[in-house]
């Protein structure tokens, strides 16, 4: 009967579960694995070197920017000092002028 047929086939196939063929690795498994591992290590090393170079380059750029900024600040500070002194002189000339005929200081 058909029902018995596929039941029988099912049971026979289920029995295969208890007698499965085990596979073993091929003779060149370790050799291939080592080659693949070395390639991966090489790629990792290259990536580390590239990242380290990038870090140094970034560090140098930051220092350079700081040096430029400091130089600009110092230079700009000196010229500001000169501007301030000339402004003081101008102001004092304007506000603290003495007339030729008077001893008093005239505030304008």
């Amino acid at each position, binding site marked *: 009967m058909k029902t018995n*047929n*596929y*039941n029988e*086939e*099912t049971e*026979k*196939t*289920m029995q*295969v*579960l*208890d007698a*499965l*063929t*085990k*596979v*073993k*690795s*091929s003779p060149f*498994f*370790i050799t*291939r*694995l*080592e080659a*693949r*591992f070395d390639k*991966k290590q090489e790629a990792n090393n290259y990536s580390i070197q590239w990242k380290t170079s990038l870090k140094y380059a970034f560090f140098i750029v930051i220092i350079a920017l700081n040096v430029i900024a400091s130089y600009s600040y110092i230079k700009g500070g000196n010229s500001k000092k000169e501007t301030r002194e000339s402004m003081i002189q101008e102001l004092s000339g304007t506000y603290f002028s003495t007339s030729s005929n008077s001893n008093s200081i005239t505030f304008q």
Partner: protein
Amino acid sequence: MNNREAFRQLVDQYKDKVVNTCYGFVHQKEDAEDIAQDVFIEAWLSYPKFRGESSLSTWLYRIAINKSLDALRKQKTKKYIGLFKNLLHISDESVDNLKHTEPNPLQQIEQYEREQALYKALDKIPVNQKIAITLSKFEDLSMKEIADVMETSESAVESLLSRAKVSLRKHLEDYYKNI
């Protein structure tokens, strides 16, 4: 002992177990070896993180299972892409690689066909049941060992194995009814 020798020793000791475990999931020797290589590379690179809470073999089995399941997911995606490309008449060699290899001449044809039917049924059962039955039948692990790998209790493993057999039987009955 230097690193290279230590790595070789690790591989030598466990390669057959790992390849066989992966074979239990992917049913293709070449694919199983590729995945096993990934397992050993990952194991070596992440060894500093291994805290020794489980045995080394248990840890390797876990990596092997994760890698095998990842490979199966990628295979499914490739299959769908392949089907889509077939619809558009685009050929793809990688899809052809999904075909099963020719049977080993030394195996009896019937044994081979039954194994293939079993593998198809295995691919349809839930993942946890598949893991439990693969470790039990392909690797002959004890309940305790399977429980350690799956990080669950022995009674849970027993339940999974029992349900796995019921699921397999059901899928095989459907398979034999339709041929």
